[in-house]
C-alpha cells in the first residue's frame, strides 16, 4: 500500500519549510491551524478525528491528506506513544505533524544567541513536546527566569547557582554536634590537643545557656535543630505520599529513594530559609513536577544537578504564591481569600448565570473547592502528564502564573457548566473536589479565551 503512494513523498518535504517560514515571521497562521485542530478535539464531536490503530495497517480508513500514508509508518510509533501518554486513543494526524514542527521550532528558538522570550512563551503556551530535554530547558531557562536570555551566560549562571546551592546545603543542613565541633576547631584547637594525653580530672568548660542540647532558647542551635526535626518528619511523611502511582517517586527502590532524598533536601532547605512559612503540606506536590522534568533531562550534566536547579526554580515559583501559604495573611489583600474572591469575580464577569447558581443557589464558596486548586497549582486535580501540559501554559503566560491560574480555574468551572447547573450542593461539591478527566487542550483554549476581570483593576494615581 505504501509503494503506490511513494511518489507523494516528494510533496511532503515541501510542505514543512513553508510552515516554518510562516511560523518565524508571525504566529497567526499556526494559531489558526492549531485552533482548528483543537476545536476538532472537542470531546463532544469526534467525527473529524482519525483513530489510528497501532496494530491495524490495512483497515480501510478515510484519510484526508494523502501524504500521511508515508509518514504513517514513522509516525505510528510516535503516535502510539502519544496516545498511550494521553490516555486516549483519539489522535489527530495533523496534530502529530504539528508536534514535530513545534519541536523543531522550539529547538530553533532555543539555539538562538539571544532568546526571544515572547516567542518562546507563545510556543510553550501551546504545549511543549516531550523528549530531548526540551521541556526541562524551556522551563528552566526562561519561564522561571532562572537563566538569562543570553545563551552565552547560561554556563556561568548554572555553575554559580549550583555552587551556591551546595554551599547552602552544607551550612544549613548541619547537625548541631558538627556545628559546635567546627566552631571549636576554629577557636582553640591547640589547647584541646594538649589535654588529651594527660590522665586525671577532665577539664570543664563553662558554656553559655544556649549551647547545650536541652536548651529551649530561641537562639540555640540545638533548639532550632529539634524544632526542625518535626518539620523534617512531616516532609518525610508527605514525600512518601507523593504520586504513589509513579515509580519515580514512590516505592522502595534505590531509584525512588534517591529522588525522595533530593526532594527532602530541597524542602528542608526551603523551610530553613523561610522561617515565616516553613513547610506547608502540599509543597511537595508543587515541587514534584519541577524535579521530575529536570531530572529526566537527557543531558547528563543537567540531570545530575537537577536538585540544585529544582531548588532555585521552586523558590522562584513559590515566591509568587508564598502569601497563600501564610495563615496570618489569609484575610489580607494578598492572601488566599482575596485570590479566591478574584476567582469568583472572574467567573461572574464571564458567566453570570453559573456564578449566581454556585454562589446563591448552591451556596458553594470558592474556598470549598478552589483552595487546593490555587495553592497547589492544580497538581492534585489531574494526572501527571496533564499537569505538565497545564504548567506549560501556566509558566509561559506573560502576565504571570497567578493570572493564568485563575483563568484555568474559571475554565474548569465553565467546562462543567451543564453538570453544575443541574446539581445541588452535595453533588456539585463532590464534582468540584474530584474534578473529572477532561480534554486539556480544550480546557486551556477556554481559559485563553476568557475575558479578563476588570473589576479589580484600580486606576493608579
Amino acid at each position, binding site marked *: 500500500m505504501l509503494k503506490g503512494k511513494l511518489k507523494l513523498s516528494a510533496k511532503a518535504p515541501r510542505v514543512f519549510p513553508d510552515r516554518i517560514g510562516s511560523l518565524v515571521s508571525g504566529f497567526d497562521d499556526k494559531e489558526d491551524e492549531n485552533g482548528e485542530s483543537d476545536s476538532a478535539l472537542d470531546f463532544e464531536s469526534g467525527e473529524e478525528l482519525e483513530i489510528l490503530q497501532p496494530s491495524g495497517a490495512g483497515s480501510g480508513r478515510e484519510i484526508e491528506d494523502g501524504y500521511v500514508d508515508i509518514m504513517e509508518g514513522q509516525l505510528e510509533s510516535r503516535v502510539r506513544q502519544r496516545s498511550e501518554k494521553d490516555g486516549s486513543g483519539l489522535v489527530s494526524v495533523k496534530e502529530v505533524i504539528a508536534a514535530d514542527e513545534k519541536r523543531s521550532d522550539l529547538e530553533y528558538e532555543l539555539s538562538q544567541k539571544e532568546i526571544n522570550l515572547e516567542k518562546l512563551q507563545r510556543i510553550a503556551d501551546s504545549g511543549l513536546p516531550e523528549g530531548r530535554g526540551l521541556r526541562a530547558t524551556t522551563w528552566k531557562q526562561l519561564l522561571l527566569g532562572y537563566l538569562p536570555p543570553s545563551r552565552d551566560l547560561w554556563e556561568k549562571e548554572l555553575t554559580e547557582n549550583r555552587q551556591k546551592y551546595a554551599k547552602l546545603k552544607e551550612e544549613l543542613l548541619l*547537625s*548541631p*554536634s*558538627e556545628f*559546635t*565541633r567546627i566552631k*571549636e576547631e576554629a577557636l582553640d584547637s591547640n589547647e*584541646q590537643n594538649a589535654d*588529651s594525653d*594527660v*590522665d*586525671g*580530672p*577532665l*577539664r*570543664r*568548660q*563553662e*558554656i553559655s*545557656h544556649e*549551647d*547545650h*542540647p*536541652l*536548651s*529551649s532558647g530561641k537562639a540555640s542551635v540545638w533548639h532550632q535543630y*529539634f524544632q526542625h*526535626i518535626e518539620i523534617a518528619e512531616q516532609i518525610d511523611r508527605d514525600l512518601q505520599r507523593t504520586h504513589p502511582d509513579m515509580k519515580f517517586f514512590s516505592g522502595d527502590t534505590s531509584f525512588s529513594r534517591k529522588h525522595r532524598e533530593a526532594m527532602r533536601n530541597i524542602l528542608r532547605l526551603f523551610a530553613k530559609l523561610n522561617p515565616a512559612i516553613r513547610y506547608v503540606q502540599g509543597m511537595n506536590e508543587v515541587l514534584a513536577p519541577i524535579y521530575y522534568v529536570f531530572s529526566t533531562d537527557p543531558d547528563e550534566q543537567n540531570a545530575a544537578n537537577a536538585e540544585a536547579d529544582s531548588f532555585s526554580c521552586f523558590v522562584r515559583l513559590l515566591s509568587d504564591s508564598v502569601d497563600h501559604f501564610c495563615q496570618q495573611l489569609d484575610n489580607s489583600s494578598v492572601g488566599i481569600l482575596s485570590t479566591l474572591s478574584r476567582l469568583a469575580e472572574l467567573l461572574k464577569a464571564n458567566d453570570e448565570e453559573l456564578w449566581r447558581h454556585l454562589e446563591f443557589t448552591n451556596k458553594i464558596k470558592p474556598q470549598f473547592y478552589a483552595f487546593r486548586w490555587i495553592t497547589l497549582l492544580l497538581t492534585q486535580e489531574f494526572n501527571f502528564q496533564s499537569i505538565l501540559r497545564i504548567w506549560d501554559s501556566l509558566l509561559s503566560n506573560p502576565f504571570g502564573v497567578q493570572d493564568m491560574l485563575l483563568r484555568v480555574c474559571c475554565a474548569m468551572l465553565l467546562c462543567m457548566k451543564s453538570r453544575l447547573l443541574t446539581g445541588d450542593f452535595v453533588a456539585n461539591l463532590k464534582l468540584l473536589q474530584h474534578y473529572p478527566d477532561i480534554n486539556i487542550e480544550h480546557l486551556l483554549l477556554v481559559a485563553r479565551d476568557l475575558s479578563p476581570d476588570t473589576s479589580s483593576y484600580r486606576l493608579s494615581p
Partner: protein
Amino acid sequence: MVLVLALGDLHIPHRASDLPAKFKSMLVPGKIQHIICTGNLCIKEVHDYLKTICPDLHITRGEYDEETRFPEMKTLTIGQFKLGLCHGHQVIPWGDLDSLAMLQRQLDVDILVTGHTHQFTAYKHEGGVVINPGSATGAFSSITYDVNPSFVLMDIDGLRVVVYVYELIDGEVKVDKIDFKKTS
C-alpha cells in the same frame, strides 16, 4: 549524633520527693535517644517517668532499689563507644579512681558510668573515661549532706563525645562541657 542521658541516685521517695523543677522542664521527650541510670531510683514510678522521656532505658541496681531484677552491671555499645554501667556501691573504696579503673578494665569499656557518691566527677584514665553523674535530686548521701543536684548528657558523634554537665547551684542551672576523643 546520639544523645545519652546519664543520671542516678534519685532516692525518691526516701530522701527526695522529686527532681528539681528546672531539670524536669528540660527533660522533654523526643530529644534523647538513650538513658543510662546508675541506680537508686528507688520506686517504679520513677522508672515509668524515665521511660516517658526515652523508651530506651538501662538501669543497674542500687542498694536501695525496690526492683530486685535490675542487673548489677551492664555494658552497651552506642556508636563507636562502649559504655559500662554500675551503681558503684560494690566498688570499694567508694569513688576511688584506681578501683573504678579496675572495673573499667574488667568490663572492657571506653566510658564507665557509676554513682553512689552523689558527687559529680569526670576522670580520664588510661584511654578511658570514668564519669559520675552525681545525684539528680540532690539527695543526701552517707558521705555528705552538701549535694548539688546534677546529671550528665553525652553527645556521641563518631569518635568524639561531648559531655554536658548540668548542675543546679543556688537555684540556677549551670551547664559545663567536656570534650573527649577516642584515640583508636
